[in-house]
Each structure stands twice: as structure tokens, then as C-alpha cells.
């Protein structure tokens, strides 16, 4: 009788990349619904454009590299990259924004580094940063939540706006971004940033209409809660572990709490930090990319903490209102170091006794 010893890993999780990715976009659905409720149908159009571009770019790259085109598409990683990028950009941005961003994500950030599993940087966020740096105006023109907008936008208007820059009635995006008071409306984080830099206190800054109903600004709080819900589903079905989102939220909220204790007038409370901007999308969907995040659980915790801390630092003192993309890319660079120092010690191989 012979004992056959199989090589590790001994515990299997019977889940293909395709299934993991499918869970990710199922979990994005609540967020997407909320986003299209508050900000119009633009996001769906952006997703369509992104998917189309991603498919073309992926097929071109795989053909150039002499690999099977259909195989690459089937692992669904390009789909997730495209969808995440489409969600991150303002939903009424012109069509070429998402096309350039997605093409850059897939071609330069993913395939130049060697394709699935080889890339150093999160493709969606690298594409986002390219767009933010190159086209700052378009990338900060978030539409006003429908409930506060002066003009309401139909599906047809959305399509015309994305492809031609004007609606059927001839309104430009700049006009559509006016609130009910006829003033162009910034996102909650953006408006806070401007006001705080003009020496207003937080309570003065948050008295604007955009902060009227909810905790983190109209629309944005619900959006973040929807992404939180989807993210919790992902944790529950064990597609992601809690370490990265947990670490990131801790890294963001702890300093925010301390700051709002000591400087209540000049700093934003933790609740607003948690429920505005891209916090929840970043914590549960973007930072948890299995390729570019740290590997061990302890490493993931540090990775998340670093992202959270960086988001807090950039939001508070940096030049940009939101910071998830920059924080994720910076943390991606640190991942090899984190992995080196958090490598678990195999049983029987040194360590403390």
C-alpha cells in the first residue's frame, strides 16, 4: 500500500477566476441602481462604452501576443476593470473619456506588464489617474443629484450629452450642473474642500443644499451605503476577505475621528468621510483587486490601513478632493515590501518558539 502525497495547496476553493469576477459585478448591482437613481442613466451608457472598448483592446492585445482571444475574454477580469472605471468617472463625461481610459487600462497597465495576474498597478485606477491628470475639467464635472437639479435629464438627453456635448434642447453639461439655486454644484467633498480653504467652518460649509438631507451629501451617502451592502455580500460569500476593506476604513476613520475631536471646526467628521466620494467603492471593490493587493491576511490589513491613511491625508491636505485612486496606486507600489515582511512562517521553519 502506498501513501500518495499530493503537493500543496491541500485545501481547494473550487472557484474559477470567472466565478469570482461574476460575484464582483453581481455585488455592484445595488450601487449601480442607486447611482442611476441619483445621477441618471449615464453610468449605464459609460459601462457599455467601456465594455466595448475593453473588448477591442483585449482582443487586439491578445492577437498581438499570439494568444487565444476568446480565452482572455472569458476570465471576465477585463469586464470588471471596465465596469469599475465606468462607475468611477463622472457619469455624463464625453464618450472619448471612457474610451481613452479603458484602452489605457487594458493595453498599457495590464498587457504591457504581461496580462492577467502580472500587472503591478490596479488597471482601473491607473486609467482613472491618467484621465484625472489629463482632463481635469471633464473628470471633476459630476452631475448634480437629480433631486437637486434645475433641469432633469432623460435617457435621450444623456446619450446626446455623452456623444455630442449638448442635450436635445441645447443645454451643455455646465448648465445642467446647476443646482436649484442656479449655481453650479460641486460634489460634497469638492465643495467642502473649497469652503474649508476659504476659512469657513465645517458647520458653515455643510449648510449647503448638497448636504441637505443625508449624512454624506445628497445621493452620495446612499451610493456609498449601496456599495457597502454589495461589499458585505462579497465578504459574506468569501470572494474577498475583510482585511483590506476593514483596514482601509480603519485607516481613514480613525484619523478622521481624532481630527474632528481636536479640530471640530476645520475637519470633516468620520461619517462624512465614510459616506462620501469613493470610500466604499474603493474599500470593497477597488482596493481588493486580488492581483495588485498584498497576499497574506496580515499584509492585507497593512495594505488597507495604508490606503485609508493616504486617502485621509490627501483629502485633508492634498490638492485633490478625493484620493482613492492615488492612494491605491501608491499602496500598490508598496505591496512587494509588505509581502516581504508579512510572509507567514511555515510550520517548523524558525520564528519564535
Amino acid at each position, binding site marked *: 500500500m502506498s501513501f500518495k502525497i499530493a503537493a500543496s495547496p491541500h485545501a481547494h476553493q473550487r472557484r474559477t477566476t470567472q466565478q469570482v469576477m461574476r460575484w464582483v459585478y453581481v455585488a455592484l448591482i445595488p450601487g449601480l441602481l442607486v447611482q442611476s437613481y441619483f445621477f441618471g442613466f449615464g453610468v449605464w451608457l459609460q459601462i457599455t462604452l467601456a465594455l466595448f472598448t475593453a473588448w477591442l483592446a483585449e482582443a487586439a492585445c491578445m492577437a498581438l501576443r499570439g494568444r487565444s482571444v476568446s480565452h482572455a475574454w472569458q476570465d471576465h477580469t477585463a469586464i470588471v476593470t471596465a465596469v469599475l472605471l465606468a462607475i468611477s468617472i463622472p457619469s455624463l463625461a464625453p464618450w472619448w473619456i471612457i474610451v*481613452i481610459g479603458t484602452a489605457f487600462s487594458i493595453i498599457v497597465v495590464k498587457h504591457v506588464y504581461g496580462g492577467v495576474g502580472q500587472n503591478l498597478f490596479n488597471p482601473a485606477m491607473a486609467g482613472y489617474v*491618467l484621465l484625472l*491628470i*489629463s*482632463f481635469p475639467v*471633464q473628470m471633476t464635472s459630476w452631475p448634480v443629484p437629480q433631486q437637486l437639479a434645475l433641469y432633469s435629464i432623460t435617457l435621450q438627453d444623456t446619450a446626446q450629452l455623452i456623444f455630442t456635448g449638448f442635450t436635445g434642447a441645447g443645454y451643455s453639461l455646465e448648465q445642467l450642473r446647476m443646482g436649484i439655486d442656479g449655481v453650479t454644484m460641486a460634489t460634497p467633498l469638492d465643495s467642502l474642500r473649497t469652503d474649508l480653504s476659504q476659512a469657513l467652518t465645517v458647520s458653515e460649509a455643510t449648510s449647503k443644499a448638497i448636504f441637505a438631507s443625508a449624512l454624506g451629501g445628497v445621493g452620495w451617502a446612499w451610493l456609498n451605503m449601496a456599495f457597502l451592502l454589495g461589499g458585505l455580500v462579497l465578504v459574506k460569500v468569501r470572494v474577498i476577505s475583510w482585511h483590506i476593506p476593514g483596514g482601509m476604513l480603519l485607516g481613514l476613520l480613525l484619523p478622521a475621528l481624532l481630527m474632528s475631536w481636536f479640530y471640530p471646526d476645520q475637519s470633516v467628521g468620520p461619517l462624512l468621510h465614510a459616506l462620501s466620494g469613493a470610500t466604499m467603492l474603493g474599500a470593497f471593490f477597488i482596493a481588493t483587486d486580488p492581483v495588485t493587493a498584498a497576499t497574506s491576511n496580515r499584509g492585507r490589513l497593512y495594505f488597507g490601513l495604508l490606503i485609508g491613511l493616504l486617502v485621509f491625508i490627501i483629502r485633508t491636505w492634498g490638492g485633490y478632493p478625493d484620493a482613492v485612486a492615488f492612494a491605491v496606486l501608491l499602496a500598490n507600489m508598496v505591496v512587494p515590501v509588505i509581502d516581504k515582511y508579512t510572509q507567514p512562517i511555515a510550520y517548523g521553519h524558525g520564528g519564535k518558539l
Partner: protein
Amino acid sequence: MNEYKELTRQGLWKNNPALVQLLGLCPLLAVTATVTNALGLGFATLLVLMGSNLTVSLVRQWVPKEIRIPVFVMVIATFVTLVQLSMNAYVYGLYQALGIFIPLIVTNCVIIGRAEAYASKNPWQKALFDGFIMGVGFTLVLVLLGGIREIIGNGTLFDGAELLLGDWATALRVEVVQFDFPLLLAILPPGAFIAMGFIIALKNAIDQYRAERVAKPVKAVTRARVTSQ
């Protein structure tokens, strides 16, 4: 004459200072936002490279081995100062555009590298030619990179050429594409790194393609096994 041909091949393609040796990357990436800047810095480097190669080659018999590097650096610094003062006098606009990167030519590794590797061991004619051809190779890459970045980031070519060549050169300005919103990243330093990476990749791809065409398919020789296992 054969050696000159070989030097040309080395400087322009096979051992190109920018594409293969990857020397002088700092000015290469920093000032190539437009063709004009690239051309200006390329010429300045070319002049310094020729001057320093010539001088180093002429004095090579009298420079002790132990202190050759400081001597080379002083020679290079002299030529850089000459070039800098002349640029200040004759092409002031470009001098301001290039700024700190003119004095920094002193630290460009291409120059000290050629002085040490070639000029200090060869007669002055060859050293001068080597300096010339290496400088041309470097300038060509600068201009190529500058052209790519200027087209993508600004939609033009030879924008501001009058700074380098005088007033008649305003006619050189070509509006290649009219962008409403140019891709700013191409003008910024990351754009330089990405474009440079693609140029190097292209060069390697061309080399590989040529090597494959030259290499004759080797006929596989089947050998009869003479020993049994």
C-alpha cells in the same frame, strides 16, 4: 574608413546612447515636451560631446590614470559653461525654457561615458567622430520623443521653434491635430517614461524581426543512436 562605418552603426542604432545604453535619461525625459526643446538640448549635448571627446583624446598621453575622472569632468564642465554662456547670449528664450538642464549636461553620463570608454584610448580624429555620431544618435532620440509627446500632448510640431532658430522659424510650426482637450499626460514626466518605453520596445521588436530574417532555419540533424540504453 571601416572603423568610422562601425562607429556610425554603433552610435545611431546598435549602441545608441539613449535607446540601448539608457544614459542621460534625466534630460531626455525632462525636456522633451516639445521638438524645439529636444533639438536645443540635443545640439548642446552634441557640441559638448564633440568638444570633450576631442580634448580628452588630445591630452590622453599626459593624464595620469589615477586622476583621469576629475580631469575629464573639468574638461566637460568647461565645454558646458561655454555652451551655456553662448546659449544665454544667442538663444535666450530657449535658454530660459531649458533652464537647469543646460548646466546639468555636465552630469550627463553619455559624455563622461564616451570620454572614458572611447576618447581616452583613441586618436583625436576617431574620438571627434565618435562624439559627433553619439551626439547625433542622442539628438535623434530626443527629437523623436519630443515629436511624439508634442503631437499627443499639444497637437503641434516645432511649436516655439523661433526660440532656437530665429524669427523665420515661426513658419515651421505645424498644427498636426486640433485638440479641444489635449492629453496632458503626454507633456508631463510620466508620459515621457511611457513613450520612451514604447520606443525602446519598438527598437527591440525591429532588432528581433531582423535577427529572425537573417537567421537561416537550421536543418535538424537526426542522429542514429549507436549505443543501446
